[in-house]
């Protein structure tokens, strides 16, 4: 298909969900209602860390209007000594995250939930639950959590033979770093910190769950995976998966934050106990206190180079906050940081640290921006020390086909070099800068992913097409799939409807995450459409009474080929559909695949900033990102992904952060205090799409959604350094902090 003159692939066709969204008809989870529905509300911990001594729900249960109360006793307990992995999660932690068991581990940790005839009654009844705690000392920051005398969150988790808040490590090694550094003329070592930031999706978590009298359960929820919702809910409520139908509602953003459950199992138990459908909707405050942000981090990176500009060794240690339960994205930080480069000796270590804050969740290229911030900042200094242009230094070491990466793979065909070359050639890189302005560059890598996806392609009786896939659409996958299906079948994309199936109507499909959805689902659709075309040719052969091999499918119609060419009038999709019953019945095929061949995504960014020297405000003046997008199946959406990633990076670099008060509570749990950028804070974010099609994919697709965030923190910090000569090793570079550093440069540290 890459060689075909594409008609629909590469077109920014009208998005299929657009009309419903702009007219307010799209149904989000909080919009769903059922007869007899009641409301669930969660009692959350007022303490950052405490042992639960007793919990008495009798008054809440007796409260008028209350229909059910659940506590941890109603949720399946996965004992702490036996790992139960589900995807990248572990059900030991998941059961303790959705409902505190032995201890409350963060302020806002759920303790119990009440379902009542109104939201207000449910909330009131929560206050009637009598709790007795033994309040424990708590710890919030990594540096405090790893001290020898730190309060320990989980006594049973050990590191170096002792109970510890270090709950996991990961190591990548290539070559011998000691030997490498011995050859180096220039060695730069720096330490960095980043603050936890929230994904900032606009739609809070929400669900409606109905458990019928026979146990058959329907869940409508906002998630990045209806199959994940089904599996986790089944495990946490001890139900067979076949009894649960999880329906993916339209989703108002996720960015990784909706790849785990918070409410669904709780609502399921409330519904089961009360016999009524139960709706639960988080407030923004609940979202900010108790759903996953991404990790804060503490890292040290050391890079050595010879004076002729060869990087000979690189070392990194990345401590990441996991939140209250283990599982931070150390793989992203330690794995992606050095992944763009051909460096002979690499040693990269990731360390998972728990503390009394909400459990982190995935956020767009989880961990990778943290790794890249440290590595790309140090690279910038190496380039400066060697007096080499920073893009030139990256180009010299850029990974290409055949490069062995420290995190494992030897790269197949990748388009990283192309992103750097395009950046060097771009007018942005040569544009003059004014006073107090600076320019920074950085590159980044994200793994991307394949895995399980299913699709069904059905031909309607009137000869149109319905495609069902299994992934909530958070980045434009329906539009892109419509383009792919139209291209394959040779018909107008408007004749293709793409729907997201629920767990009962489409085969198993893994999460919307890892930049995997279009990659994997386009493969399933290609497979299904191929089978459909075979069937269409067979039906035409039957109608013409010729051999099926003598029929080809071109431009949306069956044509006789070979000896029969020109003998019969071509048959359109509509012609064949009209005769389907007579020729063998309904036409449609599905595929259920475990896809492989996903290849890494690379990007290079150029950022210009201006610093307001009186106020400390860093303003992004111009931003251009260059990305190997494989194949831009729907360019407007790809551009949107690139811009969205950069916008989130700007927020992370300049202003966003979780702030905790002296009691270990989040002090800015809402958008009046959590500093996310808005459109008026940003310039137009230019996106240069570079297409190096993935040879392992029928349409050349590479994931595009996550890597755009990866280089942004470093590109901005490097630009600030270029403007001021000051290196901010701790994010965010908020105005008071920048101003303090202008007055006292050591404040940048």
């Amino acid at each position, binding site marked *: 298909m890459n060689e075909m003159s594409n008609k629909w692939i590469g077109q920014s066709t009208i998005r299929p969900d657009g009309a419903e969204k702009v007219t307010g008809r799209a149904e989000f989870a909080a919009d769903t209602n059922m007869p007899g529905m009641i409301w669930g509300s969660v009692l959350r911990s007022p303490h950052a860390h405490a042992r639960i001594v007793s919990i008495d729900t009798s008054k809440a249960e007796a409260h008028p209007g209350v229909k059910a109360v659940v506590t941890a006793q109603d949720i399946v307990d996965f004992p702490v000594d036996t790992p139960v992995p589900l995807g990248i999660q572990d059900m030991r932690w998941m059961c303790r995250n959705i409902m505190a068991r032995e201890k409350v581990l963060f302020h806002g940790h759920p303790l119990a939930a009440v379902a009542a005839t109104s939201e*207000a009654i449910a909330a009131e009844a929560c206050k009637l639950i009598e709790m007795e705690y033994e309040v424990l000392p708590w710890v919030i920051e990594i540096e405090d959590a790893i001290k020898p005398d730190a309060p320990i969150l989980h006594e049973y988790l050990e590191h170096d033979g002792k109970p510890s808040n270090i709950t996991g490590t990961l190591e990548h090694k290539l070559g011998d770093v000691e030997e490498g550094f011995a050859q180096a003329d220039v060695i730069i070592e720096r330490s960095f910190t980043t603050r936890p930031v929230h994904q900032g999706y606009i739609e809070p978590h929400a669900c409606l769950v109905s458990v019928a009298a026979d146990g058959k359960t329907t869940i409508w929820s906002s998630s990045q995976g209806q199959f994940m919702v089904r599996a986790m809910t089944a495990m946490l409520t001890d139900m067979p998966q076949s009894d649960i139908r999880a329906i993916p509602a339209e989703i108002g953003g996720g960015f990784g934050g909706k790849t785990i459950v918070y409410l669904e199992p709780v609502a399921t138990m409330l519904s089961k106990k009360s016999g009524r459908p139960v709706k639960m909707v988080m407030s923004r405050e609940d979202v900010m206190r108790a759903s996953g942000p991404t990790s804060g981090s503490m890292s040290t990176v050391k890079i050595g180079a010879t004076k002729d500009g060869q990087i000979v060794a690189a070392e990194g240690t990345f401590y990441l906050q996991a939140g209250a339960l283990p599982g931070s994205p150390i793989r992203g930080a330690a794995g992606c940081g050095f992944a763009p480069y051909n460096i002979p000796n690499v040693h990269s270590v990731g360390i998972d640290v728990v503390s009394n804050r909400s459990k982190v969740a995935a956020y767009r290229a989880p961990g990778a921006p943290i790794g890249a911030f440290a590595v790309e900042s140090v690279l910038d200094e190496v380039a400066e020390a060697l007096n080499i242009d920073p893009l030139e230094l990256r180009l010299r070491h850029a990974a290409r086909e055949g490069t062995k990466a420290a995190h494992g793979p030897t790269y197949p065909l990748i388009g990283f070099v192309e992103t750097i070359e395009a950046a060097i050639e771009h007018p942005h890189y040569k544009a003059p800068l004014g006073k107090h302005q600076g320019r920074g560059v950085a590159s980044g890598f994200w793994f991307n992913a394949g895995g399980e996806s299913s699709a069904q392609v059905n031909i309607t009786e009137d000869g149109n097409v319905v495609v069902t896939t299994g992934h909530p659409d958070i980045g434009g996958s329906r539009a892109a799939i419509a383009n792919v299906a139209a291209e394959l079948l040779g018909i107008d994309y408007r004749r293709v409807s793409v729907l997201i199936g629920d767990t009962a109507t489409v085969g198993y499909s893994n999460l919307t995450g890892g930049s995997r959805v279009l990659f994997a689902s386009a493969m399933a659709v290609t497979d299904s459409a191929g089978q459909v075309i075979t069937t269409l040719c067979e039906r035409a052969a039957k109608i013409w009474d010729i051999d099926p091999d003598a029929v080809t499918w071109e431009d949306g119609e069956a044509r006789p080929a070979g000896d029969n060419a020109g003998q019969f009038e071509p048959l359109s999709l509509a012609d064949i559909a009209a005769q389907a019953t007579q020729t063998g019945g309904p036409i449609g095929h599905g595929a259920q695949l475990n896809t492989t061949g996903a290849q890494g995504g690379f990007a290079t960014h150029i950022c210009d900033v201006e610093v307001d020297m*009186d*106020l400390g405000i860093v303003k992004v003046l111009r931003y251009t990102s260059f990305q190997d997008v494989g194949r831009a199946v729907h360019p407007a959406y790809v551009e949107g992904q690139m811009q969205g990633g950069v916008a989130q990076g700007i927020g992370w670099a300049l*202003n966003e952060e979780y*702030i905790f008060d002296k009691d270990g509570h989040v*002090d*800015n749990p809402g*958008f*009046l*205090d*959590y*500093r*996310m*950028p*808005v459109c008026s*804070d940003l310039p137009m974010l230019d996106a240069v799409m570079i297409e190096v099609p993935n040879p392992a994919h029928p349409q050349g697709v590479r994931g595009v959604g996550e890597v755009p965030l990866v280089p942004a923190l470093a590109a901005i910090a490097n630009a600030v350094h270029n403007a001021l000569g000051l290196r901010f090793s701790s994010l965010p570079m*908020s*105005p*008071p902090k920048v*101003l303090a550093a202008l007055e006292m440069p050591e404040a940048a540290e």
Partner: protein
Amino acid sequence: MYNFNYKKASSRDDAVAAQSSADDGSYLAGGMTLIPTLKQRLAQPSDLIDLADVGDLAGISDDGGAITIGAMTTHATVAESEVVTSKIPALAALAGHIGDPQVRNRGTIGGSIANNDPAADYPAGCVGLNATIITNKRELPAEDFFTDLFETALEEGELVTAVSFPIPDKAAYAKFPNPASRYAIVGVMVAQTGGETRAAVTGASQSGVFRAADIEAALGSGLDAAAAKEVKVSADNLNADIHASAEYRAHLISIMASRAAAAAG
């Protein structure tokens, strides 16, 4: 939200009467502040008296020497008004930078000043421009109207009907918006009206909007921006929060005043 009685007033008198007959009645203007307060159960009025249908509370008039803005006029209307943009562009710009488009299209000048949020923009606009606040009972200078954090001179049931702004010789407003809420971390209205120089500061003080005497002295009759920038404002009694320390706010006062003065020209 707790339950309340809802009444849509048809006239000023109707509104005032409804308020006085209620146990604990509250006027409802744009609802941008009041409704979230109710949702969070931070207030429990017995009655809400909606001013939306009191037609003569909205609108902008120009009587030559002053511009009078009805209490129910939205921030968006002020920002786009031809009269305001030509006669007091500083005020139009101030209104145009309040919150976001949704807030500007609902929020009103009457609601804003009655609420007197210490980080709101209009209080600085009113005091800096030496406006007169007009109520159903009286007229009083802005300086006497804003009394303390979220406190005004309004008596129980008193209705703000309009604000009258004398046309200044020169004026400009400079705001350092909170990067999250967009309220002012510090905002300074610098204006010269009938020979008097004023610098009114919002966002900074623990007791709400105030005139910065040392800045006004430095600005002088020539609106000397460079002199204002040199003023070392004391951090005593200034707000400190998760976004900015008292010292940073003190610093912002002289910088924003200086920038406003430079813009006012």
